[in-house]
């Protein structure tokens, strides 16, 4: 299990534990962190990523030596994990209140101010994403309250469009949001795949394609954000590179033969530490 499951899930999946969404965790320190996180998001990410990428261009080894401390701090403040759509549904079934808001990554990377891919979740009766964003005119008119059913439908549609679902902490282990990511539009996915700096865990799963069912159509390859699906022309079959796979599961929706399933990452010996 990923280390958060061990530390914050008592050996179960930490993001399925109701206590990690509860208002008891929302103390002053987390409120302050979250407010500053959003208020200064573009400035902070550009300064920090800008500096890191400049250092990588000049001296990659020196930049990589900074990674362990960056990751350690991120694990305390703001870290994520990929979750497949079934678990997004389970999280939403914990009768959390849900708001949909514009994604701050996309606003900084592309200047899109209405890219409403991000879902704030919190224990019923408490407020997090909406309370944190509401004071700011940039977002106050874009905060949309949704029912659980509306949120599930919206995220299921994003799943069929190949977006990767990720949960995020705001002061680990408090989970404040579920975002829907692509490698080009999400700072975390992009920074991990292009710079090798992991700011989130892969899912507790890894995909596998049933050899007999696969007809070699390659539709699954279209949706994989991580280049984890390979095609063998001679036998006209696809297979999943398990070491590249993040276990997001969006490939499954593309397969006309239902040939793809998610397996427990922890049951695959060489992947037990591959997070």
């Amino acid at each position, binding site marked *: 299990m990923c280390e958060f499951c061990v530390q914050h899930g008592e050996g179960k999946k930490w993001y399925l534990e109701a206590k990690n969404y509860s208002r008891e965790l929302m103390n002053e320190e987390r409120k302050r962190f979250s407010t500053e996180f959003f208020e200064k998001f573009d400035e902070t990410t550009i300064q920090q*990523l800008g500096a890191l990428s400049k250092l990588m*261009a000049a001296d*990659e080894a020196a930049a990589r030596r900074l990674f362990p401390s960056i990751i350690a701090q991120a694990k305390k403040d703001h870290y994520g994990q990929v979750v497949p759509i079934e678990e997004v549904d389970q999280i939403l079934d914990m009768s959390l209140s849900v708001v949909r808001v514009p994604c701050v990554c996309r606003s900084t990377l592309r*200047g899109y101010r209405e890219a409403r891919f991000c879902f704030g979740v919190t224990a019923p009766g408490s407020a997090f994403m909406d309370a944190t964003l509401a004071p*700011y005119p940039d977002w106050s008119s874009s905060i949309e309250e949704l029912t659980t059913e509306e949120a599930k439908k919206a995220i299921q549609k994003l799943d069929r469009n190949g977006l990767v679902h990720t949960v995020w902490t705001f002061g680990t282990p408090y989970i404040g949001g579920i975002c829907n990511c692509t490698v080009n539009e999400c700072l975390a996915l992009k920074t991990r795949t292009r*710079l090798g700096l992991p700011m989130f865990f892969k899912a507790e799963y890894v995909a596998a394609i049933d050899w007999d069912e696969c007809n070699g159509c390659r539709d699954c390859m279209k949706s994989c954000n991580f280049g984890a699906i390979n095609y063998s022309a001679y036998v006209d079959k696809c297979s999943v590179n398990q070491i590249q796979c993040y276990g997001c599961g969006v490939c499954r929706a593309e397969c006309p033969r239902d040939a793809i399933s998610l397996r427990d990452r922890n049951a695959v010996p060489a992947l037990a530490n591959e997070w």
Partner: protein
Amino acid sequence: MIELTWDDKKCTSPNECRRCLDVCPQGVFGIYARDGRKPGKAASNWAIAPMYLNLCTGCEICDETCPEGAITVRVAAQGATRRTWRKHVGAEL
């Protein structure tokens, strides 16, 4: 060496234009507000800055696309790996 230069005076409305952000195939650029947001106050005074300078290939698509000529790319030698970012008067980052 690949040298990117961004002219703050020519880049008049980055938040409305956004073309460099969209067309760069490597997604090098980001946009931030120099006058940050505060409760009750929207962010403003936008500027373009590189978030992933190490991914720049020197393809010059940003230079070709910018309608104001605010971004220019100068490649000093083929096979260049060193990348720099310069801002003209007016920018801070």
